[in-house]
C-alpha cells in the first residue's frame, strides 16, 4: 500500500503543486510565529525575537527548496520550467524560431518523403514468402550480341527435371484477352503461368484452387483464375463465382479460383491468370518467349545456379529437337539467375538513390542554416546566460535548458516535417514516371516515421550542443562589460559561421552541377530524332482481332483493312495505319535474317534482327520519309508477295547507300522462300532515344513463309491516326464509333498519343531533372540566406574597425570592397570544395546522363561563375550597410 500513497502524493504534487506550495508556506509561517512567541515569552523584544527566529529557521528559500525536494517530483517541475522557458524564448524571437522550425520541417519532410519511396521500392522485400531465394531466369547469348532473352520451354522442362540448384521453376508471360458476353467488351490484361508458378511464389487463391498439371496440358479447356479486383469490378464479388464461365476471345472458360486482394506477379496485378500451355512433345530448343522465375534450394547462390543451369544446355539439346548444340555454343548460350528483386526494380535504383542523396543534401543545407540561426540566438542571449550564471545557475542546468529548447524545436520541426511528408509522398507518386516499380508498396510506415522523428531529435540535440558550446563561452565579466560587441568567444563563433557558409555554398554547387548535367541530358534527349514527326497529332490505341472473329489470314487482313478504312473517313484525319509496335513501345521480336549476298561464314552465329509488322501507310502516318523505294500496298499483302522494308541502319550494315539495298534478298531460315527488299525507311529509335536506332526489318502484318508454311497473322496492332485537329485525343469518340461500326466486339486499349509514348520513354530523365532542379533552387536560396546572414554578422562585428578606417580616410567604395572581398573568398572556397565534391559524386549518375560527360567543363564553368555571382549579390546589401556606417557612431560602440 506504500506505493499507492506514494503515487497519490506524487500525482498531487504534479497536478496541484500550488496547493502544496500554499500549505507549505502556511506551515512555515505558523512555525515561525510560534518560535517568535516562544522567544517573546522568554523575554525578548518582538523585533529581536523575529530576527532570532529567522536566523534559527534558516534561509527560507533554501528551506522551501529542501522541503520541495522531498516531494520527489523535482525533475518534473524542472522539466516543466525548462519547457516554459523554451516557449518564452521562442516567443521572444519568433521569426528566428519560426524560420528554424520551417526550415527543419522542409528538410525532414523532404527526406522522409523520398525515404518512403526508397523504402517501398528498394528496401522492402518482395511480397512473396522467402523472397530472397527467388530469382529471375533469363538466357544470354553474347555471341550474337544479345544480352538477355526469356526462357525456352525445352530448357524449362530440362531444368525442372534435372536441376539440382532449383527447388522449383515456373514460366510466365503477359498477354491480353478480349472479354465479351455480359457487359461491354473489354480488353483485359492477363498473365499465363505454368502450374508451378503460384505455389512457387507462395500465392494462394482466396477462393477456389490453383492450376494443376492437367490444366496446363494442351488438351485442357483452359480454366481461369480471376484477380480479386476483377472479381469485384466485373462480377460484383459474386460468392458463387466458381464454376461459372467467362467468354475469352470467343471461348467459354471455366472460372476455378479468385486471387487474394493485391496479389501481384512481377509487380503487376493482371485481371486474369491463365494456364500457360506448353506441349512438351512439340516444343524444341528455341522459342525464347517465356520469362522464368525459380526458387533456389537453400544455400545455393544465384551465381552457382547460373553456372549449373548453363551446364545443362547439352542435356537439353539431347532430349529435345530444335536449335543444335553447336549453334548454341556459337552464340555463347548461357542461363543467368538474377535475384528477383533486382529484376523487378531494375534501374530505378540509381534514380532513387540519386534522389535520396539530393534531398539528403538539402536537409544538410537546411540544418546548417538552422545551426546558424541557433548561433545567432545564442549570441543574442549571451548576456542572459552570463547573468544567470552569476545568479547561481549551474552549467548543467543551463545546458539542460538549452538542450530542451533545441529539442523542442527539433521535435516541432520533425512533426511538421512528417505532416509535410504525407503530402510530399502523394506529390512524388503523381510526378513519378509510370515505370516506377512497386508503386503499390509505397506507404508511410512506422519505420519511416521513426527515422524522421529520430532525425529531428538528433538535429535538435546537435543544435543544442552547438549553442551550449559556442554560446556559453567567454568569461563571465566580458559580455556584461562590453555590451553587445562581445570579444572573447566571438572569434570561435565567427569561424564556425564562416565554415557553415562555405559548406552551404559547396552543397549548392554540387546540386547545381547535378541539375546542369541533367538539364543538358534532357535537352540532348529532346534533340534526338525519334523516327517520326509531330507526335502530338497522332492518336494511338491497340486493337486485337481474336481467332474466333477471324480464323484465317484473309479474315485478319479484311478485318484490319476495314477498320483502317472507317478510321480514315473521320473528318480531320490525314492518315491511318497500324503496326505491331510503334516507336518506343519497347515491344520486341527477333528473327534470324540470312542475306543472300552475305552468307554467314562457317562457325559464326546466325544474325538476329528486330522485326516489326505493319499495314500500308505506316511511314506516311509516322511522317517518317522513305529513304529509298516504296512501302507495302494492300495488294502486296492480299497476294502474299514476299516483300520487306528495312530501316536505314539495316541498310548501312551492308551497303553504302540506301538505294543499293533495293532488290536484295534474304531468308528467315534456310528452307524458307526469299524475301525481297522493296524499300528503305528512316531510322526509328525503338528502344528509346538513348539507344542507337536498331537494324529493323518490316514485314506485312499477314504473310507466309515466316516460320514454316503457315500464314503468320499479327492480330494485335497498334493503330496510329494522324489528324489535323488541335489535339489528337479530340478524335477519340469518333474513332471508337468507327471501330465499333466495323466490329462491335473490339475494344480499344492502351489509348495514348504518340507524344505521350515519347514522354513516357524519357519520363525517368524528366523526373530526375525536375527533382534536381527543385533541390538546386532550394539549395541556392538557402545558401543565399546563409551567406547573407554570415556577411551581415561579420559586418556587424567589424563596425568599429570600419568606422575607424573611414575616419582615417577610407572612402565608401573601399569599405564596400573589403566586405565583398571577404564574401568572394567565402564563395571561392565554397565553389572549390563543391566542385571537388561534384566531381566525386557525378560519376555515380553516369547511367542517367546522355550526350554530356560527367566532367563537362561547360556545366562546371557556368555553375561556378553563377554561384560566385549569386554570393556576391547576397553580400551586396550588408556591404552597402557597412559603407553607410557613421564613423562616430561606430567608434562610440554600444
Amino acid at each position, binding site marked *: *500500500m*506504500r506505493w*499507492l*500513497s*506514494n503515487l497519490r*502524493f*506524487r500525482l498531487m504534487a504534479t497536478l496541484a503543486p500550488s496547493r502544496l506550495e500554499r*500549505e*507549505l508556506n*502556511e*506551515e*512555515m509561517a*505558523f*512555525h515561525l*510565529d*510560534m*518560535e517568535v512567541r*516562544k522567544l517573546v515569552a522568554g523575554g525578548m523584544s518582538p523585533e529581536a525575537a523575529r530576527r532570532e527566529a529567522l536566523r*534559527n*529557521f*534558516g534561509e527560507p528559500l*533554501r*528551506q*522551501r*527548496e*529542501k*522541503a520541495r*525536494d*522531498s*516531494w*520527489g517530483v523535482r525533475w518534473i517541475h524542472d522539466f516543466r520550467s525548462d519547457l516554459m522557458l523554451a516557449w518564452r524564448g521562442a516567443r521572444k524571437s519568433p521569426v528566428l524560431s519560426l524560420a528554424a522550425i520551417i526550415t527543419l520541417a522542409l528538410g525532414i519532410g523532404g527526406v522522409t518523403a523520398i525515404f518512403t519511396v526508397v523504402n517501398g521500392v528498394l528496401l522492402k522485400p518482395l511480397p512473396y514468402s522467402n523472397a530472397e531465394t527467388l530469382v529471375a531466369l533469363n538466357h544470354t547469348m553474347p555471341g550474337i550480341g544479345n544480352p538477355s532473352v526469356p526462357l525456352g520451354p525445352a530448357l524449362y522442362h530440362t531444368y525442372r527435371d534435372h536441376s539440382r540448384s532449383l527447388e522449383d521453376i515456373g514460366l510466365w508471360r503477359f498477354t491480353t484477352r478480349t472479354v465479351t458476353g455480359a457487359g461491354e467488351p473489354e480488353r483485359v490484361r492477363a498473365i499465363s503461368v505454368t502450374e508451378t508458378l503460384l505455389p512457387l511464389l507462395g500465392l494462394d487463391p482466396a477462393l477456389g484452387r490453383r492450376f494443376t498439371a492437367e490444366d496446363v496440358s494442351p488438351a485442357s479447356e483452359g480454366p481461369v483464375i480471376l484477380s480479386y479486383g476483377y472479381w469485384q469490378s466485373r462480377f460484383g464479388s459474386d460468392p458463387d463465382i466458381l464454376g461459372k464461365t467467362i467468354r475469352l476471345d470467343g471461348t467459354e472458360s471455366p472460372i476455378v479460383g479468385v486471387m487474394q486482394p493485391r496479389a501481384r506477379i512481377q509487380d503487376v496485378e493482371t485481371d486474369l491468370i491463365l494456364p500457360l500451355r506448353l506441349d512438351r512433345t512439340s516444343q524444341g530448343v528455341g522459342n525464347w518467349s517465356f520469362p522464368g522465375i525459380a526458387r533456389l534450394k537453400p544455400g545455393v547462390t544465384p551465381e552457382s545456379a547460373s553456372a549449373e543451369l548453363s551446364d545443362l544446355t547439352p542435356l537439353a539439346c539431347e532430349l529435345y529437337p530444335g536449335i543444335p548444340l553447336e549453334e548454341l555454343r556459337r552464340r555463347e548460350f548461357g542461363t543467368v539467375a538474377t535475384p528477383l528483386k533486382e529484376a523487378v526494380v531494375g534501374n530505378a535504383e540509381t534514380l532513387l538513390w540519386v534522389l535520396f542523396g539530393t534531398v539528403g543534401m538539402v536537409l544538410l543545407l537546411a540544418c546548417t542554416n538552422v545551426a546558424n540561426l541557433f548561433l545567432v540566438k545564442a549570441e543574442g542571449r549571451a548576456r542572459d546566460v552570463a547573468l544567470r550564471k552569476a545568479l547561481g545557475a549551474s552549467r548543467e542546468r543551463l545546458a539542460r535548458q538549452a538542450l530542451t529548447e533545441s529539442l523542442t524545436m527539433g521535435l516541432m520541426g520533425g512533426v511538421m516535417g512528417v505532416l509535410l511528408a504525407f503530402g510530399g509522398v502523394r506529390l512524388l507518386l503523381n510526378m513519378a514516371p509510370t515505370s516506377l516499380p512497386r508503386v503499390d508498396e509505397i506507404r508511410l510506415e512506422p519505420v519511416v516515421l521513426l527515422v524522421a522523428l529520430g532525425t529531428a531529435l538528433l538535429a535538435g540535440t546537435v543544435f543544442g550542443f552547438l549553442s551550449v558550446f559556442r554560446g556559453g563561452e567567454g568569461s563571465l565579466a566580458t559580455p556584461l562589460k562590453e555590451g553587445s560587441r562581445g570579444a572573447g568567444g566571438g572569434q570561435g563563433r565567427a569561424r564556425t559561421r564562416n565554415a557553415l557558409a562555405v559548406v552551404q555554398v559547396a552543397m549548392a554547387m554540387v546540386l547545381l552541377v547535378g541539375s546542369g548535367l541533367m538539364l543538358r541530358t534532357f535537352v540532348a534527349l529532346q534533340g534526338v530524332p525519334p523516327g517520326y514527326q509531330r507526335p502530338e497529332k497522332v492518336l494511338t490505341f491497340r486493337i486485337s482481332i481474336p481467332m474466333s472473329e477471324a480464323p484465317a489470314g484473309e479474315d485478319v487482313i479484311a478485318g484490319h483493312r476495314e477498320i483502317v478504312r472507317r478510321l480514315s473517313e473521320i473528318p480531320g484525319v490525314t492518315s491511318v495505319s497500324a503496326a505491331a509496335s510503334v516507336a518506343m513501345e519497347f515491344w520486341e521480336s527477333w528473327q534470324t535474317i540470312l542475306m543472300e549476298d552475305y552468307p554467314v561464314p562457317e562457325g559464326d552465329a546466325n544474325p538476329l534482327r528486330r522485326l516489326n509488322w505493319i499495314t500500308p501507310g505506316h511511314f506516311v502516318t509516322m511522317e517518317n520519309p522513305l529513304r529509298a523505294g516504296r512501302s507495302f500496298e494492300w495488294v502486296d499483302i492480299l497476294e502474299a508477295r514476299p516483300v520487306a522494308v528495312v530501316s536505314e541502319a539495316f541498310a548501312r550494315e551492308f551497303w553504302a547507300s540506301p538505294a543499293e539495298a533495293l532488290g536484295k534478298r534474304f531468308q528467315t531460315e534456310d528452307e524458307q522462300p526469299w524475301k525481297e527488299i522493296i524499300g528503305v525507311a528512316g531510322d526509328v529509335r525503338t528502344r528509346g532515344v538513348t539507344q542507337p536506332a536498331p537494324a529493323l526489318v518490316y514485314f506485312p502484318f499477314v504473310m507466309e513463309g515466316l516460320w514454316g508454311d503457315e500464314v503468320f497473322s499479327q492480330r494485335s496492332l497498334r493503330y496510329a491516326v494522324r489528324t489535323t485537329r488541335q489535339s489528337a485525343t479530340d478524335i477519340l469518340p469518333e474513332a471508337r464509333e468507327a471501330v465499333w461500326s466495323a466490329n462491335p466486339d473490339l475494344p480499344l486499349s492502351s489509348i495514348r498519343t504518340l507524344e505521350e509514348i515519347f514522354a513516357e520513354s524519357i519520363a525517368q530523365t524528366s523526373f530526375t531533372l525536375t527533382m534536381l532542379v527543385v533541390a538546386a533552387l532550394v539549395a541556392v536560396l538557402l545558401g543565399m540566406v546563409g551567406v547573407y546572414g554570415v556577411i551581415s554578422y561579420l559586418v556587424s562585428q567589424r563596425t568599429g574597425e570600419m568606422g575607424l578606417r573611414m575616419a582615417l580616410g577610407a572612402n565608401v567604395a573601399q569599405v564596400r570592397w573589403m566586405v565583398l572581398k571577404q564574401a568572394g573568398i567565402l564563395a571561392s572556397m565554397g565553389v572549390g570544395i563543391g566542385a571537388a565534391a561534384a566531381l566525386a559524386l557525378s560519376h555515380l549518375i553516369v547511367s542517367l546522363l546522355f550526350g554530356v560527360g560527367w566532367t563537362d567543363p561547360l556545366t562546371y564553368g557556368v555553375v561556378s561563375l553563377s554561384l560566385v555571382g549569386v554570393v556576391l549579390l547576397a553580400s551586396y546589401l550588408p556591404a552597402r550597410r557597412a559603407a553607410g556606417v557613421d564613423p562616430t557612431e561606430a567608434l562610440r560602440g554600444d
Partner: protein
Amino acid sequence: MGRQKPDMIKGTLDMLILKIVSMEPMHGWGISERIQQLSRDALQVNQGSLYASLHKLTREGWIRSYWEVTENNRRAKYYALTRAGERQLGMEAEHWDRLASAVARIMAVS
C-alpha cells in the same frame, strides 16, 4: 541558548518524528520543540530538514496530515501516525537498537 550543530544520522530524524507523533498527534513546530525538550537540548532540528522529513513520511504513508485550529485560534497542520507508520516505527526502533548495541560493543573494547 547554547546550541551545537546537531549531528543527526540520516534517517534518525524520521524515526524520531514517528515516535513523537505516536505519543500524540502534533504540528510541525510542536514536533521540533518536543524533540528539543525530550533530548534535553542535545538535538536541535533544522527546520528545512524537519519539513522535508514530514513530507517524505506523509508520502510514504506512515503519517497523515490534517488541518486544525490550535488553542490560539490559528490554523496548523497536524500529523498523526498511521497503522503502517506504527509498523514502520517498530521496525526502525528495532533496527536502531541493534545498531546502537553493536556500536557500544565495539567501543567497549579497551
